[in-house]
């Protein structure tokens, strides 16, 4: 029993997991039994505010998502390596403090570099118009009056 103690400890968590799974399955199945099934063609199209979708959903995305994810992995490893230090913090005192400070300082250098290179800064929206008094071109005025009169 001694060696299996560790495994039995996780049983309540497993029960909670099974409970959560059962809850969703029960609800979805129950709903499936009682909800209406009306098939129309439009309902099965991808929703784009009433327009017919053009092209696939996989368009080129901002590559900054990848840089963010990489920075995340770097700092995630940092957090993970900090936790063992935290537990034995009182045993090691100033010695451990300095060791971890060096560890973090190196990583903060990386963060500062990323900051300096604006790698973790999202592209700011650039205004499409010029500030200042707006002059409407003569052509546009024509178009507008045409539209209004017709």
């Amino acid at each position, binding site marked *: 029993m001694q060696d299996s103690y560790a495994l039995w400890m996780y049983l309540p968590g497993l029960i*909670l997991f099974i409970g959560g799974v059962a809850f969703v399955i029960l609800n979805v199945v129950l709903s499936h039994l009682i909800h209406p099934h009306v098939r129309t063609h439009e309902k099965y199209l991808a929703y784009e505010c009433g327009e017919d979708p053009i092209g696939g959903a*996989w368009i080129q995305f901002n590559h900054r998502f990848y840089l963010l994810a990489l920075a995340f992995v770097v700092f995630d490893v940092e957090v993970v390596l900090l*936790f063992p230090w935290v*537990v034995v913090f009182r045993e090691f005192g100033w010695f451990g403090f300095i060791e971890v400070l060096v560890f973090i300082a190196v990583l903060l250098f990386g963060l500062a570099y990323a900051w300096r290179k604006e790698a973790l800064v999202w592209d700011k929206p650039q205004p499409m118009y010029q500030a200042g008094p707006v002059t409407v071109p003569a052509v546009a005025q024509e178009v507008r009056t045409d539209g209004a009169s017709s």
Partner: protein
Amino acid sequence: MLRTLLIDVGKALYLFSGLMGLAAILTWMERKQSALMQDRVGANRARIFGLRLLGLPHIITDAVKLLTKEDFVPAGVPTWLHALAPWVTLTVACLPAAAIPFGHVLPWGGQAIELQLMDMQVGLVYALAIASMAIYGVILAGWVTRNKWAVLGSLRAAAQLIGFGVVLGISLIGPVLLYGTLNLQEMVHWQDTTVLHGWLPRWGIFFQPLAFLVFLTVGIAETKRIPFDLPEGESEIIGYFLEYSGMKFGAFFLADFIETVVVAMLTVTVFLGGWSVPYLSADQGGFVWPWGAHTAVPPAGVALLQMAAFWVKVFAVCWLLLLIRWTLPRFRIDQAVRLGWQYLLPLSVLNTFGTAAVLLIVGQ
């Protein structure tokens, strides 16, 4: 053997129904509280036998509505993958609660039942690790439905969750240094006493106010709610669950509120003394008031008071989170990213080393 199993099942059911019940109440509270804050009446149409009960029956009507709505899968989407995403989201949202103590011990038939599902030595890391998996429900929902809005929403959600996930971990290192343990039950025991001649409860928030603020901010970001609702901004991209209807949408909807409750539970456990009741001491057999008076409480009463105190505190934090949600407007994505990486991350690293230095100086 069977007795232990039954106790385990009972505890899991208690926690699960607590989570679900509180989440269901939050769906009502969100509407009623926002109405109060915006000078509206709010949900009041549903009634049982003519009783409006402040709109509370809306919880039941919502459940009935979601169950009877048509639940369709868009063309070209594998049905089982489509069903997997809400399932993963809801289950993962519930799981961190398994490490959180919702009371100390309950005396039951000459035996003491520990009021915690898993008494792990690394309970805090467990909660963080499971919370980091929440990203998969979101990614799966976006990938599988092949909708441009949903894909954009799930990418944004992923960027936001991982960005703030780092800060979530680092912001908790300060309090952990203070308590000297990763075990959530031991953290609550550390806080279950008083300082300043018995006047002030020894709660983490009084020693780590900065970590509390950072953690609460990041907690809101992790639940993907306003002001951090970029992944599901209704007015612009609707969200990663766009192609879900009926009960599957209901699962995403409920998971959002469960995440809020779980963040509140973690906040309460780490910063607000968990299940501990101020001035109530189990060793002294009752309340020990700061002015020297003593009120005796039987052991079972102590246990029940502590269990009640936990839920009261969780409810209070949920209320605070709703208050924030209905006060602030949505951040732009560049603002959210800058807040996480350039302000909260260095701030929490600073807090970690400040705390460590102070502890070392005081300790010598």
